[in-house]
């Protein structure tokens, strides 16, 4: 368990600390990270005997969970069969993630799954039409996980320039939360990054940055279900 003393991250989404107004009909939550430039180790032989995942490549995934007024994820969707016969859960649920990229309401979706962090700016985006969102949703929780991080011995302490930000409909940045790889995050493979929640008839954004050791969002989700 952790207490976060990081400050200045809670803002009323209608205006920021400069009093600027935002068009909140649509908010984009962008997740970005860079591949860490590691000092070359082992040269030619290191490359020869290296794993199949290139050194310094991480697959970060953005996840959004829609919570009701009890702080629970009400709709866990259904299981579907993939083409290769595997069973895939949470399809069309209140969780938006790489296997269920569009929420059934159509008002929140993930733009795509970037598997390496290549490229500047947002590597993955979740788009939320806040003005369309059903009243039964009270909070949206955003997580980021390192896909198979435990298997690949990867953690947030190694990742550079990771950030989450919220941008309004006109592309104006509402809030940004930077997270450079520091020792606090050593061994941590997932993180509750931020939440957007209703308060006094308006939406607010709060950066949290609570790290967890698990490399899957399922462990956090289990705490947020009715069953």
């Amino acid at each position, binding site marked *: *368990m*952790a*207490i*976060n*003393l*990081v*400050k*200045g991250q*809670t803002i009323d989404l209608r205006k920021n*600390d400069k009093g600027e107004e935002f068009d909140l009909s649509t908010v984009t939550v962008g997740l970005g990270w860079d591949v860490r430039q590691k000092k070359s180790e082992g040269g030619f032989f290191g490359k020869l005997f290296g794993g199949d995942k290139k050194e310094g490549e991480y697959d970060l995934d953005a996840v959004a969970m829609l919570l009701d007024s009890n702080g629970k994820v009400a709709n866990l969707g259904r299981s579907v069969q993939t083409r290769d016969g595997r069973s895939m859960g949470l399809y069309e649920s209140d969780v938006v993630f790489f296997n269920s990229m569009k929420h059934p309401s159509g008002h929140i979706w993930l733009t795509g799954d970037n598997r390496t962090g290549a490229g500047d700016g947002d590597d993955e985006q979740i788009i939320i039409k806040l003005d369309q969102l059903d009243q039964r949703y009270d909070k949206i929780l955003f997580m980021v996980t390192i896909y198979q991080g435990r298997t690949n011995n990867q953690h947030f302490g190694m990742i550079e320039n990771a950030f989450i930000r919220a941008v309004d409909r006109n592309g104006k940045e509402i809030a940004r939360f930077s997270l450079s790889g520091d020792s*606090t995050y050593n061994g941590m493979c997932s993180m509750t990054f931020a939440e957007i929640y209703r308060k006094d008839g308006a939406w607010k954004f709060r950066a949290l*940055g*609570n*790290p967890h050791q698990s490399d899957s969002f399922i462990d956090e989700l289990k705490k947020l279900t009715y069953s």
Partner: protein
Amino acid sequence: MAINLQKGQRIDIGLSSISVGLGWEPNEGTSAAFDLDASAFMIDDNRLIPEEGFFVFYGNVDSPDSALHHTGDDPTGGNSDGGDDETIMVDLTKVDPRVKEILFVVTIHDAIARRQNFGQVRDSYIRIVDNANSQEIAKYELGEDFSIETGVEFGRLYVKEGKWKFEASGKGYKEDLSFFLSKYFKGQIIK
């Protein structure tokens, strides 16, 4: 009729509803704003917070028992001209039975990076007010009493024979909020 507290002075709080108010004036210079924070630790017999929610600060404005409410963060001292900029409201009738003491601290946010201490802040004080009649019960002038420090343990409310009492401690530290938190919470602290 304010009483300026002597260190160690005790005051019987024969009341159930009080406010701890923190006030200061904005920085008129060109350097960074002064961002003072009022926080409260509701601690049990082990001198630890029973749950994370019993640490009331800018990031958690209501204790789980609804006994404490923090009015929210003022990052500059601009909320009020001459009055309280941050207030922690205390309803002693609602305090969770596990909580035996409530400690109040004031810290300067980011003081090291901004090279700040209480001596530079204009008209900063912390005080206890009786909500029934808005009378000031006790007050510290931070800038005069703790000029080179960045954190102050203001005082504590504690239960004795079923009654809440207040004891002023007035200890200054060159420390930040995480230092105080680490005394009363053994979990992870994200700074």
